[in-house]
Structure formats: structure tokens, C-alpha cells
């Protein structure tokens, strides 16, 4: 057993435990913090896979911006835990059965069909160099220039949409 595999197994345990903690904790603030932990472990996986730029974007955008927004809204609404309501008795067993079917099916298909016979080796020092980033930027701004511009418009529309939605009363008063 090599050191990389040990790192992978320990981190994947942390990632799965954090995901389960996110789904099952009663307090929404704890859920958000578990999700931050999960995002950070996934960022370490990106580093192991030789994608340092994506790892850093993951930490700044996901673990930083998005989760702060979540925590802000949870605390603004006081929605840490909802009052328990009458629940459907078959909902949980049904959900667990469906999830078990989904995981078995997807693992079966991935292992039997995809069969990627490749091992991920430790990223060498070249991955962290500026040349690697430059090459990625060249791909993004040559081959994927149109999607990049469309993304900027999408972000603008989302910003306008969020402002319009939360500002509805004032617009109605005019």
C-alpha cells in the first residue's frame, strides 16, 4: 500500500462522513459547516489529480463565497431547525431504497462498462508551474471563448435576478 492510496482512502472517508453529516444533522448551520469540510476535502482531491487552479477556485468560490451566502441566509431567516411536521411514514424507507438502487446501479455501470484502466500518479512539479496554467488559459480563451462570454452574461442575469427578486415590494409601490 503506497502513501498516495492511504491519503486517498483517509480523505474519502472524511468526504463521505462530512456528506452524511450534512444530510443528517438537525441544525442547518452544522450542515453548512459539514459541507464546507466536504468541499475542502474535494479540493485536496483536485490537488492530487493535478488540477491546482480548480482546487483553489473550489476553495475560494465554493467554500468561501457560496457557503458564506448559505450561512448568511440560514442565520437571517432563523431557519436552523424547522418545527417537525407530520411526515409521510413511507418517505424515509422509500428514499433509502431508491438511494441504494441508485448507488448500486451507478457503481455497476461505472465498473463494468467504463473500466478506465488508468492509475492516477502523483502530480509532478510541472503541474504547479506557470506554463501549465498558461496552457489551460490558452485552451479556455481559444477553444472555449464563447462559453466563457456566455457565463459572464449568465452571472450578470443572476445578479439582476437576485436584486429584482429581493426588491419586489419597492418596485410594486411605485
Amino acid at each position, binding site marked *: 500500500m503506497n502513501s498516495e492510496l492511504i491519503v486517498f482512502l483517509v480523505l474519502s472517508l472524511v468526504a463521505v462522513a462530512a456528506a452524511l453529516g450534512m444530510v443528517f444533522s438537525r441544525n442547518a448551520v452544522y450542515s453548512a459547516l459539514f459541507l464546507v469540510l466536504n468541499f475542502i476535502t474535494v479540493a485536496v482531491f483536485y490537488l492530487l489529480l493535478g488540477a491546482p487552479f480548480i482546487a483553489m477556485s473550489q476553495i475560494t468560490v465554493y467554500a468561501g463565497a*457560496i457557503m458564506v451566502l448559505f450561512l448568511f441566509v440560514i442565520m437571517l431567516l432563523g431557519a436552523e431547525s424547522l418545527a417537525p411536521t407530520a411526515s409521510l411514514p413511507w418517505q424515509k424507507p422509500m428514499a433509502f431504497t431508491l438511494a441504494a438502487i441508485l448507488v448500486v446501479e451507478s457503481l455497476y455501470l461505472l465498473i463494468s462498462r467504463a473500466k*478506465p484502466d488508468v492509475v492516477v500518479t502523483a502530480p509532478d512539479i510541472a503541474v504547479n508551474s506557470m506554463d501549465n496554467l498558461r496552457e489551460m488559459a490558452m485552451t479556455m480563451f481559444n477553444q472555449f471563448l464563447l462559453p466563457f462570454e456566455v457565463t459572464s452574461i449568465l452571472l450578470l442575469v443572476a445578479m439582476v435576478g437576485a436584486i429584482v427578486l429581493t426588491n419586489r415590494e419597492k418596485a410594486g409601490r411605485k
Partner: protein
Amino acid sequence: MVPVDYYIILSAILFTIGALGVLIRRNPLIIFMSIELMLNAGNLAFVAFSNMHKSFNGQIFVFFVIAVAAAEVAVGLALIVEIFKTKKNINIDEMNSLKG
């Protein structure tokens, strides 16, 4: 030396946990977080395949997914805040009519 299958399997497990969260929780904020978890699992598979094919395309797709997720969170949380202002409650069971 980690086989790339392991990353794909981990991604499938994380995706399923996210789907489970959408199915069993009543708090729309936690359902939303589960959706983020599913997007994240998809991203992990993208980066693993990008490493497997020694190509940047997967990583660039992940970059776009992160941007779209940020936009989605901004609009979705604005909607949740607005629903809370109208109904004074954000239990998912109460959200059964489009009209406020």
C-alpha cells in the same frame, strides 16, 4: 498510485448521498446544499476524467460548473428569502402553490 476508478466510485457515492438528502430533508436550504453536493460530485468525476485523458477540457468544464453554481445559489437563495417573507415559513411541504 490510485486507480482512477476509485475517484469515480467516490464521486458516485457522494452524488447518491446528495440525492438522498434531496429526498429525505424538509428544509429547502439543506435540499439546496444537497444539490451543491451533487454538482460537486459531478465535478470530481470531470477532473478525474480530465486527468485520465491528460486534457484540460474537463477542468475547464468544472470551471464553468462552478460559475453556474454560484449564479444558481444567488438566485435560489433570493427565492427562498422571498418565499420566507411571503409565507413566514420555509417548510418544503407548504410550498405547493405558485401564487403567493
